[in-house]
């Protein structure tokens, strides 16, 4: 374990700081409830920062901090032999049941005392030393140190100074003597623990008697290590003898030097030493965004920004060659498609536009033909020339026939080249020529039988042809007979502009 470079002790009246080669001591002013006053905090902050600077310590230096025993509950608990997180859960349950405050309101910690021992009933149990203090006490100190750039871990001063004595791990007894107050900590091998803050040794008479009485009440102590004011030491040892053996451990005076800070340093130097750390519940920990997280997020944001800026360049570097190949391929294919599609479409459109409207022409002629017409010949060609020979009953019918053909808008011109009455004046023989309008115009006319005529008039083109089929094929039978034939130009099922007769 890496030892922290800084050791602190919060006593009632002072804060001691001890680094490797330097130390400092600050006086503390407290409120009535024991918290540091705001003025004291303001005074301490620059001093702490200056000390860190002087000691050459970096920001966020780790520190072990010892707190005095005021308000601290110290107990030994016998628990089932479990370890790790299971032990922490068991201790938490015990705190809930045995301590006056819930674990959430406490800063608490624990460490095992000795090895687990098998019980007569076959179970294995271990002794755990538990310390707890109101979390406000620890948070008060922690916030001060954090503001100064120190990351503290808290323990008890009484347990820290025990490291200076040669004591077994499962038991210790320490006494800190000072004129203001004394602190007696006893962790007995019998599974008992206590931490008491007693009046100071002034005036000596009454206080010494009370102190001796309290120490004797703790039962059989293996050895008592005494720190602090050694002037009362010989008298105390005389009064406690022979039941309790006292050993005085001198502390060389100096800035930041105390039994607690030196004990912390001894603990840090002793490999494998167990330390009881007072932890603040996570939910109560101050929620601040640590600088490393800010750095990390800043780095991510910078990387993201860099990626955004570099993306077009990277895209160009990576995608140019594949895109060029793809574009070339598509250009070849496009030329091929253009050639094929254009050629096929031109050809098909030529086929469509070159088809003469023969059926439509027959339809228009049949619509315009008066009753009794007899056709001898009907000729049409692709150039739109229509020639018709036949006979009508009267000259009026000839004029009417011609007028209707013109009114159909299908023909650009209609010429009756010859009309000759027969010698018996029963008929008029005619020879008629006509010219279709341009195919593009005819296509826009949409000549053909109307939808309502589809039942019978779809075959009207047959009327013109039936007129030439002779008496055996009159128009009516022709229509009836054509009912099974393919219909006329139904796709253009719109009346001609000239109307039907």
């Amino acid at each position, binding site marked *: 374990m890496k030892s922290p470079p800084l050791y602190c002790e919060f006593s009632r009246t002072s804060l001691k700081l001890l680094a490797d080669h330097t130390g400092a001591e600050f006086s503390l002013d407290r409120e009535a409830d024991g918290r540091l006053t705001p003025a004291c905090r303001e005074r301490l902050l620059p001093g702490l920062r200056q000390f860190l600077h002087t000691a050459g310590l970096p920001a966020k230096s780790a520190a072990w901090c010892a707190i005095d025993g005021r308000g601290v509950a110290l107990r030994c608990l016998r628990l089932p032999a479990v370890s790790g997180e299971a032990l922490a859960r068991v201790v938490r349950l015990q705190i809930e049941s045995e301590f006056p405050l819930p674990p959430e309101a406490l800063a608490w910690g624990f460490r095992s005392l000795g090895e687990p021992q098998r019980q007569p009933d076959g179970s294995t149990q271990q002794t755990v030393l538990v310390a707890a203090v109101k979390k406000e006490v620890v948070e008060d100190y922690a916030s001060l140190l954090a503001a100064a750039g120190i990351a503290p871990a808290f323990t008890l001063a009484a347990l820290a100074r025990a490291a200076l004595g040669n004591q077994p791990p499962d038991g210790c007894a320490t006494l800190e003597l000072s004129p203001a107050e004394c602190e007696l900590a006893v962790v007995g091998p019998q599974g008992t623990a206590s931490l008491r803050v007693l009046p100071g040794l002034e005036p000596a008479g009454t206080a010494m008697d009370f102190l001796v009485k309290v120490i004797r009440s703790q039962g059989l102590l293996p050895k008592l290590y005494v720190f602090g004011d050694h002037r009362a030491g010989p008298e105390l040892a005389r009064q406690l003898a022979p039941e309790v053996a006292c050993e005085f451990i001198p502390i060389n005076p100096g800035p930041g030097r105390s039994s607690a800070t030196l004990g912390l340093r001894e603990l840090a130097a002793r490999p494998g030493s167990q330390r009881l750390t007072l932890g603040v519940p996570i939910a109560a920990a101050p929620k601040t965004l640590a600088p490393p997280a800010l750095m990390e997020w800043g780095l991510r944001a910078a990387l993201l920004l860099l990626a955004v800026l570099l993306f077009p360049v990277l895209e160009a570097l990576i995608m140019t060659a594949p895109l060029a190949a793809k574009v070339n391929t598509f250009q070849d294919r496009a030329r091929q498609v253009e050639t094929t599609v254009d050629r096929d479409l031109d050809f098909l459109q030529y086929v469509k536009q070159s088809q003469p409207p023969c059926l439509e022409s027959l339809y228009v002629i049949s619509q315009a033909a008066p009753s009794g017409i007899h056709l001898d010949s009907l*000729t049409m060609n692709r150039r739109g020339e229509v020639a018709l020979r036949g006979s009508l009953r009267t000259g009026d019918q000839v004029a009417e026939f011609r007028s209707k053909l013109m009114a159909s808008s299908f023909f650009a011109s209609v010429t009756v080249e010859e009309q000759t009455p027969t010698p018996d004046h029963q008929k008029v023989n005619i020879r008629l020529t006509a010219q279709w309008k341009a195919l593009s115009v005819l296509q826009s006319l949409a000549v053909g039988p109307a939808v309502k005529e589809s039942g019978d008039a779809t075959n009207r083109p047959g009327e013109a042809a039936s007129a030439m089929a002779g008496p055996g094929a009159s128009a009516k039978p022709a229509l009836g*007979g054509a009912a099974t034939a393919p219909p006329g130009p139904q796709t253009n099922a719109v009346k001609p502009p000239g109307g039907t007769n």
Partner: protein
Amino acid sequence: MRALSAQEKRTIRYASIGIGIYLVLFGGYAMGGALHRRTAAYQQLLTAAADLKQQLKPYDDRGLMAEKLMKQFQLDPAKLSRATVVGEASAQLQKAAASSGIQVGPIRESTTKASARELATLQFEGSGPIAAILGLFQRLQTLGYPVIVDAVQITPDPMRPGQIKLNLTLVILDFDQWKKEDKSHA
């Protein structure tokens, strides 16, 4: 070797910094220019791809239109063979006429000028009832061959009352002429 004086060290340091700055600036400028050229070329490619897309966009419609006409005429120009199209069209015409109920008469075939877009001319004669004649007209467009009616003559059939006689002149188009046009355009 003689130890450098502080002034010489400072001069060397400044010179090194200056050369370093020059190299960074020059290298950055050169690299920036290369990257800019590459990016510009990529943008040109993107523009070419967009133009190609625009160029091909009308061919969606033209392709659909060609497909519609192919369905309408039941004609696929790619399958037409110049060597066999006349014979196949003639056979198909006779088949359509017979199935329409027309009594097929003589059929005459003549070639046309090579320079024209027409491959051959068919003269068809037949007779039948009116409905059959109209049906044949209707089927001419769906023979599956590029056949265009050149001339029609309808007369009564004196031998069979109630029947009419049809004299039909058809032109068969030469698709290869369109291919040649494309090549000449290319």
